[in-house]
């Protein structure tokens, strides 16, 4: 499923990162690499952007950008 479809409190493993060149690379450089565990901390009050926890730190992405990332949902 897409990262943007995940709900608050869900955990996933990143399968694929897509998107155009600059965004793609920037997202990877911030540590959102294949195989990493990602936790959806919360959506902003206006439903965009998303706060995520990756590699032990907090990062925010727009929903549209999160839609470029495919994840496998981890069932708790």
């Amino acid at each position: 499923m897409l990262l943007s479809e995940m709900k608050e409190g869900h955990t996933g493993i990143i399968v694929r990162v897509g998107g155009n060149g600059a965004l793609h690379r920037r997202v990877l450089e911030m540590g959102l690499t294949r195989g990493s565990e990602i936790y959806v901390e919360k959506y902003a009050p206006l439903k965009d952007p998303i706060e995520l926890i990756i590699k032990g730190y907090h990062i925010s992405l727009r929903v549209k950008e999160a839609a470029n990332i495919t994840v496998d949902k981890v069932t708790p």
Partner: protein
Amino acid sequence: MHKKSITIALAGNPNSGKTTIFNNITGTRQKVGNWPGVTVEKKEGSVSKYGYDLKIIDLPGTYSLTPFSIEEIVARNFVLEESPDVVIDIIDASNLERSLYLATQLRELDCKVLFALNMADVAFSRGIKINADKLSELLDVPVVFTTGNKNKGITNLLKTAIKLAESTSNISPKRKVKYSKDIETSISKLQNFIKERVEQNFPYNIRWTAIKLLENDKIVRKRIRQKSENKSREILREVETHRKHLSSRFDEEPEIVMTDERYGFIAGIIKEIIKTSTKRRIDTSRNIDLVLTNRFIGFPIFILFIWIMFQTTFTAGSYPMEWLSSGVNWLSTILATSLPDSFLKDLLLNGIIAGVGSVIIFLPNILILFFFIAIFEDTGYMARAAFLMDKIMHLIGLHGKSFIPMLMGFGCSVPAIMATRTLESNKDRILTILITPFMSCSAKLPIYILLAGTFFSARAGTVIFSIYITGIVFSIITGRLFRSTLFKGADAPFVMELPPYRAPMIKSLIIHMWDRSKMFLKKMGGIILVGSIIVWMLTAFPRNINYSMNYNEEINKINTSSSFTEKQKKAAITKLKLNEKAEKAEKSFMGRIGKTIAPVFAPIGIDWRGSVALLTGFVAKEIVVSSLGILYAADETEETDEPDALKNALLSSEMTPLSALSLMVFVLLYLPCVATIATIRRETGSLKWTLFSIVYSTSIAWAAAFCVYQGGKVVGLS
């Protein structure tokens, strides 16, 4: 004896505590903030220690050395071109995995690098135990523990840096990132290919160059073209072949694969050096965010914070403002009585003290405002503000990060425009720069306080608030308009760290606040002083004016006449004196300029005095008040003190509440001050955009004021 000098560059992620360590080493005053990328300028500090002259350079905080943003380009170019003796990479120990990305990139750069594991105490409290010796061994790099905010480990850090700088052994070629077989093959092939074709003195490490070319690094491609002229085409063609080969092999572009592999390499290191790793931040910071970015109360709290900031700025600021004001009055009274009448006395009292004095009284407001902004930055709340605001800012066609410069624009446009450097996309930057001057800066506030206070006494607060809102509305309109016309195209990615909340250090807050207020004071001493003198000169000259009547004669007539009572005499003489001053102002150079341009301002209800004041506002917005003061000093009565005199003068002038409102709207929107224009020019690097900003804002200002004034007249306001 001449001491040996060593250049040390500090590199590191934003929020890694780099700036705190820089301050601890050099003692220099510099901003410490939590907003990612707050250190945009290259900061230097020199210190003599352990028998060396140490030159410390604080590089911009970056997550990587891939040249996307200005910070990254600045940081990488410094390491590449200036070849510092040592690079210290400040690593946030509680955020090790991501921090090591920059570390591996630095390691590849072939410079002498040293790791400072900062804030290991925080990491430890989260259950993370780092084996520094192992890290040092794995990457073949000296590793030192530091605790920046407690000033621990700095001595050891510097000593290790000096030792590293003095060591003659070559940088170990091993222990760098090793990529997968296909990529390593391409790198070594390309390495040999390049080596045969570039000059002996080619400045960069060849392996690094090969890696960057495979990653399609624009800057390195450009350098290749510059340094190896005719061979460059050959090299770039070879690079293309390898890139194509790798792309088809991995079904991804090489730079993506290599970024992935670098993190894979890091993951391997992490496994070996970290004992227990908590995946999630279970700490106070997260709990704070449960409230501050809460779905329901996040926004109300945000608005409350902004409201508190402005409320405190203007109410708490009004007391010291009064003290300063009476201080200025006291000074001018003392000087007025003790100095003999002369040209210089006139210049000093009516030019310098009246001009600078009417502006310096706003220092308390500005100090308080900057203090609040410093709190927001240092605690990490600024990033949350961007998180909350991004959706809204995105609707205007801007980035959540644009909110920060725009918020700072309420303080002063100069640092605000400088803060746009945190924006990665050039389009976003220029758009934000064009919009920021519509955020009513603190220098415009005195004008509103004066005009609204005079004409809307009871509702002054509401009027000023509406003016601020008007500015915001115009910025939104401008943003949307330009986004759909001049700046079409893809948006920059919104990838932003939300750093943990940190208790602000009082020392750093004060340094922060003071640094910015210093800018205001410097403006006082420079631009505003000069401006006040020019304005005074234009009003005071020509010295001999052809008056319509002989005032002295008239006064004498009244004095000698016996048909008036003493009281009537006094009133008549005051009136005559006022008329004389008014005529003098009208016939001065300033009055003549004002009258010449007055027709332009007539449709928006601004008379020649207003026109003159607005002209002088180009020097600095604060001057509008002092110009009005000087121009209306014609009506100054001796019994009342300075601010009330101007109020009374305005009330008895032809200015109406409606024309005052029109004037305020014009002041809000019209061309930025000289300092801002200079900043726009520097930050956009384009004369075209600078001129565009000037013309656009001034036309908008005139149009808006026209609507207010003529519209107001139509609906029967006066």
